């Protein structure tokens, strides 16, 4: 009973982690940017969905779509207002740009977080779920929403896989991650690819954020821990490797669920952090990282 419960709960949480980390690693793999406002964008999507479906009575579906759109716009704003400006800046030296982008996106994330706290208070908010009710699987009473979450996560990741591997635009993205100069030589405008990737990233973070809001609920305080968990999953799996982050998401998700059920929810985050430190010392490039 407990075994199945851990298996099912762990699966749902892990799928959510996987989706959140996929966008993060996509941005790093293609544009080389670590976006530290990631958690804030996810929270913004969830809060937007909550406000639209609850406060303005737009219904669960419209609310969810609105949340994703907000995340998409925020991701594009992150790119145009901050990342691009710093990448093109002449005042910042080339080798220091990474540090400046990290700092700037961190500040941007805090701004989003505080704006949410100011406009909607920092209470925890649960988004109106699209699917209601409880289903019994293998003797475990599972909210239907949990199954829905896992399903949507995998459907979204699957759609991304199809896009990258089966469409021309997706192949351009893949090529840009391997050799940006080669892509430009083939007559593809690199900045268009980047804008597209940031838009995809925004949509992924938005879906992950809205689902998180339905499943566990969010508050403006979740922004920092969300970024940290996406960051650690991605490093564990290997920066820039999508399949690596998927595996890592499941490792972290199950570790946390196991600890929460078997030891105590207070220790939830610790084993995953210890594992991360061990991986950093033994194999700094992560599970499936390339060098």
């Amino acid at each position, binding site marked *: 009973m407990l075994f199945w419960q851990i298996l099912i709960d762990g699966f749902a949480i892990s799928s959510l982690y996987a989706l959140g980390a996929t966008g993060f690693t996509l941005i790093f793999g293609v544009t080389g940017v670590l976006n530290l406002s990631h958690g804030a964008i996810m929270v913004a999507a969830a809060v937007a969905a909550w406000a639209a479906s609850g406060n303005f009575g737009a219904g669960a579906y419209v609310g969810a779509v609105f949340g994703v759109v907000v995340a998409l716009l925020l991701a594009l704003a992150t790119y145009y207002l901050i990342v691009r400006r710093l990448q093109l800046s002449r005042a910042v030296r080339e080798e220091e740009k990474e540090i400046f982008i990290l700092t700037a996106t961190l*500040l941007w994330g805090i701004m989003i977080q505080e704006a949410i706290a100011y406009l909607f208070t920092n209470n925890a908010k649960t988004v109106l779920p699209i699917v209601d009710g409880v289903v019994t699987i293998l003797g475990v009473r599972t909210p239907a929403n949990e199954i829905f979450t896992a399903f949507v996560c995998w459907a979204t990741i699957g759609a991304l896989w199809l896009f990258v591997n089966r469409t021309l635009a997706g192949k351009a993205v893949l090529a840009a991650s391997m050799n940006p100069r080669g892509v430009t030589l083939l007559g593809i405008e690199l900045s268009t690819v980047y804008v597209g990737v940031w838009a995809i990233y925004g949509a992924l973070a938005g879906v992950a954020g809205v689902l998180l809001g339905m499943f566990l609920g969010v508050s403006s305080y979740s922004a920092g821990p969300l970024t940290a968990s996406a960051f*650690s999953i991605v490093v564990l799996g290997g920066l820039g490797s999508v399949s690596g982050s998927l595996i890592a998401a499941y490792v972290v998700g199950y570790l946390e669920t196991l600890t929460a059920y078997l030891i105590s929810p207070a*220790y939830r985050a610790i084993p995953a*952090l210890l594992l*991360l430190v061990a991986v950093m010392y033994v194999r700094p490039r992560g599970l499936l990282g390339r060098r």
Partner: protein
Amino acid sequence: MLRRALVSPPVLISLIVVLLAATLPLYVSGYVLGLLTIAYYFGVFSMAWDLLFGFANEVNFGPSFLIGLGAYTAGILDNLYQPPIALCIAAGVLASMIGGLVLALPALRVRGPYFGLTTLVAVLMLQNFVVVAASLTGGEIGLTIPDVISIDDKVNYWIALGFMAVSGAILYGLTRSPVGLILQASGQDPVQAGALGFNVTKHKLAAFLVSAFFSGLAGALMAFYLGTASVGTFIDVTVGVQVIIGAVLGGRRTILGAVLGAVFLVALGETLRPLGDLATFIVSAVALIVVLFFPAGLLGMVKGAREAT
């Protein structure tokens, strides 16, 4: 070179500012003094961070790991056994330096974002530990520290100011010395610095130890000033972010600018306090604008303007 640096305009100006600041207790209220005392300790945090960021070229996302180690070690020791305060502070500094060594180890192996993450994880682990070991650390409520250095806010102010001035002088002198130059070279191009015969590892390790020394000392002193230590004031990631914003705002690779940034940050945060959550928003926005449009920071702008004329 060192002698010339010691009589240069920035040093003279800093000296005058410190002397003026020392007279402040004669005409401002205890409330302002209390704020400035905290701001000065934050100034030291930011300076110690700038040594790693600006010179060793290592982004340490966990300055609050070192600060927290210093503050909590000193505080717990005092709470349990009440030895002389100096002993508690020395223990805090020692713990922080050991922490600095632990942080430095991955830095010598992994680069850029990986290192940044290790330091972030260090903060999260310390935070988890403090909450879990609540019987020892006071957990989320905070740790009570029975002794204080002084109850007079003027004395506390002068201690903080003097400590900041001395730390600033040491760190500034260090970065302007040949050793500082080697450290800077090791940060910017480790391969070339190594090829010139400098021991990159040794210099980076030393930078971590010095940074940890000042962070831990400032953390322990601040804990004794406040009489309490909590996760929110010493370890939380937001504390680290504030230290980082202070250093970036003041100007990278300037050391002295970090103090300017930290004091500015505390003052701005306090002025905007009536706005509630919006205060942090505005402070972050100001910092972001500085990062985007004036990447050299406040002190860098002054320097740039003088070089241009």
